[in-house]
């Protein structure tokens, strides 16, 4: 298997949605190809670091303000359904 073929399968490999035969071929490739091994390892870390980063968590005060605004607009729409945003 060439590195380019390996990369084509990378997303399915990381997502665990790959058949046993292809998985075995990919893992055989990983055992001797250091570059692909590093790409797999660091791509997996990339996904995990973004997932765990809480990069754009909404602050409590903003959440509360937005919540009030949303519910007040929804209540206004309930009273007057003809008027849409």
């Amino acid at each position, binding site marked *: 298997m060439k590195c380019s073929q390996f*990369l*084509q399968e*990378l*997303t*399915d*490999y*990381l*997502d*665990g*949605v790959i058949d046993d035969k292809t998985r075995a071929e990919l*893992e055989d490739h*990983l*055992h*001797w190809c*250091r*570059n692909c*091994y*590093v*790409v*797999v*390892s*660091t*791509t*997996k*870390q*990339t*996904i995990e*670091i*973004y*997932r765990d*980063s809480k*990069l*754009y*968590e*909404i602050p409590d005060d*903003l*959440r509360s303000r*937005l*919540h009030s*605004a*949303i*519910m007040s*607009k*929804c*209540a206004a*729409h*309930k009273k007057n*359904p003809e008027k*849409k*945003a």
Partner: protein
Amino acid sequence: MNSLNPTAMPPIQSKGTEAVTEELALVQAAKRGDIGAFEQLVKRYDRNVFRIAQHITQNREDAEDVVQDAFLKAYQNLESFQEQSKFYTWLVRIAVNEALMRLRKRRTAKTVSIDEDVQTEDDAIPREIADWSPNPEQLYDQSELKDILGKTIKGLPPTFRTVFVLRDVEGLSTEETAEALDLSVPAVKSRLLRARLQLRDRLSKYFGKKSSRSNQP
């Protein structure tokens, strides 16, 4: 030869699905006019919608507007929700469209569409092969790390950011992401691969072992 056995790496999995029946009961109650039921749906998903909006627009003010407009539109159009898909997927679709619209307004000279062809010849070819050791958490404190992650994802094309945030940050399945973005499954997979590799490449400039950088192929 590798110190870490790749077979020991568990696959990336989607986050667990919400309790669909409970969600459906809230949607049906909201359709019958129970505004308190809709409020429960807002509380359940406002954090997710804000994250998605902020990732796509990269602007706090726009993200706040997207959250308000997406929930209001969902409420106004609740009758048209057919209940064949998850409410959350339907809501995400509304939020993504609102966010892309805001982005277009800010970039008047440049059209932004989830359908645009962003492929270039070699954007899926890794350039930085350096391993990350010590790991990023050991290299940077939380605030520096967030700064790096924010700058890096901001540099990604909006279409890639959108697929990455839905699939990898919010944990939608590939099929749900395709449904929310009105894309085919192969298109989602292709964009996700390129998004993941581009982000990895860009982060390697911060996290890669300096000694390995001269050994790139």
